């Protein structure tokens, strides 16, 4: 029901915006995201952030108004390509969106063919930014997630780590990057892949417990994997000092829904929960988000917001310089160097953000406390501790 209402809200927003008075200097921003299919949940989350960025831009810049045109790519590469072509034919100024490397890959190539700037935060694999696409930009990457995870593990001073990872693309990529960094630092690492989904994780965790005897377990997976692994851990109670995950784990939703299960578990998180927004911009973002969607912004919304805001600022600069119609947007975007909600963002020649570094949060009671890096920390980590040691 919520999804249906969300769908209608998107539709209604598009309609309202389409019917609004169209001025000569209006821009249409294109977006394709998986609003249905296997990636529906993350796609909708990111779309909310993009919508907030557009709303805020329109409020701040009375002279220029932006319309958002989103097409559901149904988590399918072919439909994403068709969506990009359709948006190109409707003369959108640029594209913001996409989730999953396998969809972003072909979609961004279609965008490049149409000479459209494409900015995303939904695909983190290294091969995406190594294709030499002049129009491709992204604000996050595996490297930044890996830095945070390995930095935290380094601070803990553990000797032996077991990595269990979902054999999908992004999760495998992250697991391998972390494994290499940790091994180079002299930490003993073993890793086990699993086929994502709804398996019974007890045999897997038992294998880790009996054969590896690690100090720490790192999970590279998605929500349902985390729930399954933590529940298996809760039953088997392996004697470890900490359990760490990556995305979709140190979130308000997990803290609310599965509070007992996630106690003292670590995950990547840009903001603490309850969020403490420091800058006026961040406060405005959180208020607008709350007003539109009736909930606190999660990490997907934050990333969608930041990428879209940077893009729209570049659009405005290019328009003011008169280079927008002459293909100047990519050059203008490349000049970006800004402190954002997700930290500093600038782009290298491949459109990747070398400054990207995630932060690590830990579930502590009804809060997610930022514990790494030291300069961003909002509290001390509780270590050693696991959900089953409390």
């Amino acid at each position: 029901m919520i999804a249906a209402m969300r769908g209608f809200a998107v539709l209604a927003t598009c309609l309202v915006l389409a019917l609004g008075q169209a001025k000569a200097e209006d821009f249409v921003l294109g977006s394709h995201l998986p609003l249905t299919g296997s990636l529906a949940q993350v796609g909708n989350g990111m779309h909310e952030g993009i919508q907030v960025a557009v709303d805020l831009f329109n409020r701040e810049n009375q002279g220029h108004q932006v319309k958002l045109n989103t097409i559901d790519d149904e988590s399918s590469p072919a439909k994403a390509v068709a969506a990009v072509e359709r948006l190109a034919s409707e003369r959108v100024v640029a594209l913001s969106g996409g989730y999953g490397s396998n969809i972003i890959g072909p979609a961004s190539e279609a965008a490049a063919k149409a000479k459209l700037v494409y900015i995303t935060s939904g695909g983190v694999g290294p091969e995406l930014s190594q294709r030499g696409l002049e129009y491709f930009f992204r604000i996050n990457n595996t490297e930044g997630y890996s830095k945070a995870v390995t930095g935290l593990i380094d601070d803990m001073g553990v000797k032996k780590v077991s990595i269990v990872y979902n054999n999908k693309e992004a999760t495998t990529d992250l697991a391998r990057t972390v494994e290499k960094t940790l091994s180079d630092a002299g930490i003993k690492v073993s890793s086990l892949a699993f086929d994502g989904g709804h398996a019974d994780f007890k045999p897997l965790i038992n294998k880790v417990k009996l054969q590896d005897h690690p100090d720490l377990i790192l999970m590279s997976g998605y929500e349902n994997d985390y729930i399954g692994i933590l529940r298996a851990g809760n039953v088997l109670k392996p004697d470890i000092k900490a359990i760490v995950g990556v995305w979709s784990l140190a979130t308000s939703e997990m803290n609310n829904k599965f509070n007992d299960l996630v106690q003292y578990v670590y995950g990547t998180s840009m903001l603490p929960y309850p969020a403490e927004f420091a800058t006026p911009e961040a406060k405005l973002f959180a208020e607008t988000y709350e007003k539109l969607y009736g909930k606190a912004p999660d990490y997907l919304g934050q990333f969608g917001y930041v990428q879209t805001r940077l893009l729209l600022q570049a659009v405005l600069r290019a328009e003011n310089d008169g280079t927008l119609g002459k293909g100047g947007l990519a050059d203008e975007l490349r000049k970006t160097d800004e402190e954002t909600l997700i930290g500093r963002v600038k782009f290298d020649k491949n459109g990747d953000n070398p400054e990207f570094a995630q932060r690590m949060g830990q579930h502590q009671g009804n809060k997610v406390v930022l514990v790494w890096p030291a300069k961003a920390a909002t509290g001390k980590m509780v270590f050693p501790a696991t959900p089953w040691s409390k």
Partner: protein
Amino acid sequence: MFELGLQAIYSGVLTGGYYALVALGLALVFGTMRVINLAHGELVLLAAYVAYSAEVHLAISPIAAIPLSLVVVSLVAVLVYVLLSHITRDRELNSLILTYGLGIVLTNLMLLIWSADIRSTTATWFQEGAVLGDTLYSSRSEVIFFLVSLVLVAGLWFWLTRSWHGRAVRAVSSNRDAAMLMGVNPRTTEVLSFLVAGLLATFAGIALYTGKTIDPPLGHALTIKAFIITVLAGMGSIPGVLLGAMLIGITEALTISFVSTSLQDLAGMVLFLAVLLLRPQGLFGFGTRRG
């Protein structure tokens, strides 16, 4: 090594109990109507979602939600039956395609109603450990529903072989015309077998919701698992379903422990194909599947 294997077998047996719950309804309808209900997994998932709604909106435990789930799932099961009974020719294949379509409808209805988010019970009681002799680990949910599964298998078997209604169901499945002459109304017995399948799906759904996580695409995977087990069991063999389910559960758990977790499904499918091709009547059945 020994400890790992022992735990794998124990986990496999418990998982097998849960798989049997999922498969029983499909096997029953298959045995009585010669219809493979490809929407069966969606019925199981539906029961789980009703329990979720009951937990969130009515604040009741998934166990207390069983009657509510039962009503909803039974209604849908009867609806599936009514639609199936309108198929006039080539019933075996057309019913396969019809229930396939119904599965798609149900999956997307659940997506519309409950969204794509991952759900699972927030009651932690079910996930607390139940440790046997300090070496065999399991969760409470697994143990409870393993026992439920044993009771239901025994009950179903008893019902089919000992009660009048159960015998009527079997009579209709072996010879519809003869059964009619004996005063059995085939429609009533067929509805009855669908209702019992709905009951079994309900228990499977509650086991699923208390033990694992759910999202809308899961129904299809459950149907396939149920079909694989039915094939392993052999047509019409209810105790065979339990044994087949345990065989799959143990094979998967041993694959995880000694080979690789990502090959878990492969092991199950290879087992399925091997049985299908080498012993088409199933491990515990008598029927024929050759063309």
